């Protein structure tokens, strides 16, 4: 069946793992994974399944990462019991990568920061936004808890090799336009099913000039288009990012110049405005200029999508010297302890508090309607998060709009969804 075709980055990663010279989309492989991640919602299910195997050890303790981030600091008794399960499991099975409250962060901001994800790796996580790590040139995808249990027991996972859609972005981004706007625009173009089961390759000059924080944001939302993964091929920006975060060897993998893509989509983003996803779907995307009569009650700046230092810097630069609208609650949630510390040192947190924002310890919190900022009926939020389905942040009769941090900060000041230009 196979002639020697060029392969995409993901095809090559799978071929290498499966010990094959050539691999094609649709093939099934059962491969050893390099990293398997779980959190306080998904790992308890995985641990219960794992215990039924009756093993006295995990396949490889170094390969497992456990991060209690969704309902922490412990939201209630039930959540406390779930986190306790994680903690005890990590102790019992001697798993070094358990990140306790006070030392942790939101998993998809934490793992890249800690150098745990690198080019060429195969990474699974019992969380849909595991696709984030494609930004460093890994294959990374969300799986279920039983998959995590299987990886903890035998170190493997099954995959159907995905076909790849290549997205080429040309042009120079306007001021205030970020990775978040690129991915929202893309999802708006192709829909929540537009990349279902596919790998999304992000490429082109606009991506080559995008920082790692911006790339992490884009890859993070591949799942919202149904994508199996989203990735940026490694380059100088990748290598620079990894320096000092890891001393582990890695081998960058690249798509061949004659790789076969299912589709190639090209976008000239030189005149792209900041984008807003309207409720009730991440693909209900419009330019921010179409949102300016929408009044909001709460703004959230944070999450695995946009809680990194660049996001906080942008938000702080917009809001500096101004106050949050009296009818709005602004919640700022740095995504990791390190980012929190850095934001503190740079004076960003002072800027937010002076503006009358509420600043929180790292947590997923309000993003999934967990805690730390739930919405009442009839309330509208603008968030730098990744999903806005019905009831996402609280009451089923509340609504969530999605944007990047610059729009979020500006909107917190005006009480309406606005372009940062209106505030600066």
């Amino acid at each position: 069946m196979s002639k020697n075709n060029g392969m995409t980055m993901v095809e090559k990663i799978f071929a290498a793992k499966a010990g094959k010279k050539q691999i094609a989309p649709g093939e099934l492989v059962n491969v050893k994974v390099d990293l398997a991640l779980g959190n306080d919602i998904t790992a308890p299910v995985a641990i219960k399944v794992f215990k039924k195997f009756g093993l006295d050890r995990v396949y490889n303790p170094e390969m497992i990462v456990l991060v209690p981030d969704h309902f922490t600091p412990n939201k209630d008794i039930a959540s406390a019991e779930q986190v306790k399960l994680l903690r005890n499991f990590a102790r019992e099975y001697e798993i070094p990568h358990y990140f306790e409250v006070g030392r942790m962060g939101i998993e998809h901001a934490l793992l890249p920061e800690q150098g745990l994800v690198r080019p060429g790796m195969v990474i699974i996580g019992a969380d849909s936004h595991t696709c984030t790590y494609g930004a460093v040139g890994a294959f990374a995808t969300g799986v279920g808890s039983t998959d995590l249990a299987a990886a903890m027991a035998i170190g493997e996972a099954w995959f159907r090799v995905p076909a790849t859609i290549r997205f080429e972005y040309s042009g120079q981004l306007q001021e205030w336009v970020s990775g978040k706007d690129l991915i929202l625009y893309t999802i708006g173009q192709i829909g929540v099913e537009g990349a279902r089961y596919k790998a999304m390759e992000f490429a082109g000059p606009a991506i080559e000039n995008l920082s790692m924080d911006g790339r992490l944001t884009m890859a993070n939302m591949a799942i919202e288009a149904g994508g199996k993964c989203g990735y940026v091929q490694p380059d100088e920006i990748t290598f620079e990012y990894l320096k000092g975060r890891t001393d582990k060897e890695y081998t960058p993998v690249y798509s061949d110049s004659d790789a076969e893509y299912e589709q190639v989509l090209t976008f000239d983003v030189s005149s792209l405005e900041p984008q807003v996803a309207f409720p009730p779907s991440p693909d209900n995307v419009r330019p921010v200029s179409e949102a300016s009569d929408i009044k909001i009650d709460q703004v959230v700046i944070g999450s695995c999508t946009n809680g990194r230092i660049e996001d906080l810097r942008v938000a702080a630069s917009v809001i500096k010297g101004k106050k949050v609208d009296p009818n709005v609650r602004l919640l700022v949630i740095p995504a990791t302890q390190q980012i929190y510390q850095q934001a503190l040192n740079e004076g960003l947190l002072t800027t937010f508090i002076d503006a009358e924002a509420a600043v929180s310890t790292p947590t997923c919190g309000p993003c999934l309607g967990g805690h730390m900022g739930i919405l009442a009926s009839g309330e509208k939020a603008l968030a730098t998060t990744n999903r806005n389905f019905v009831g996402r942040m609280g009451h089923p009769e509340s609504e969530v709009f999605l944007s990047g941090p610059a729009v979020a900060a500006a909107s917190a000041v005006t009480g309406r969804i606005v372009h940062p230009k209106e505030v600066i």
Partner: protein
Amino acid sequence: MILEGKVWVFGDNVDTDAIIAARYLNTTDPGELALNLMEDIRPGFAGQIEQGDIIVAGNNFGCGSSREHAPLAIKGAGISCVIAVSFARIFYRNAINIGLPILECGDPLSKALPEQDLIRADLDSGLITHLKTASEYQAAPFPPFMQEIIKRGGLFEYVQFRLGEKS
């Protein structure tokens, strides 16, 4: 395996927040999760379900989060099968892994079948029959490579088999 049950009809893009809201994710018990199934989009649905009922839906069923609680809640409620035009990939994967039968049917059954009518679904051949009218619809049977996991009853059973091989 042949299943027979009455259908409950849903539309496109039924996401995991709709299937089981995040506020219920501090339990892993399928029976408890089942009590809150589809609560935000169809209040009271959980109380209407009878053992063996079948969910029929449109495109992209189960989109959103990876939470295994979603298929667990559906299975825990006694739903015997979900038939959709297409499934989001993590939900599809989770359903197979926990042994919740699913079928992808190109014909939009959600538009053709009146709610609470009886259907028969043959999981091996993918044939679906609307009993009242004898209309037939063809769903895609599981690809051969999924058979091993399904034949064993789920991923857990498959891994047990692999662990047994080693010892």
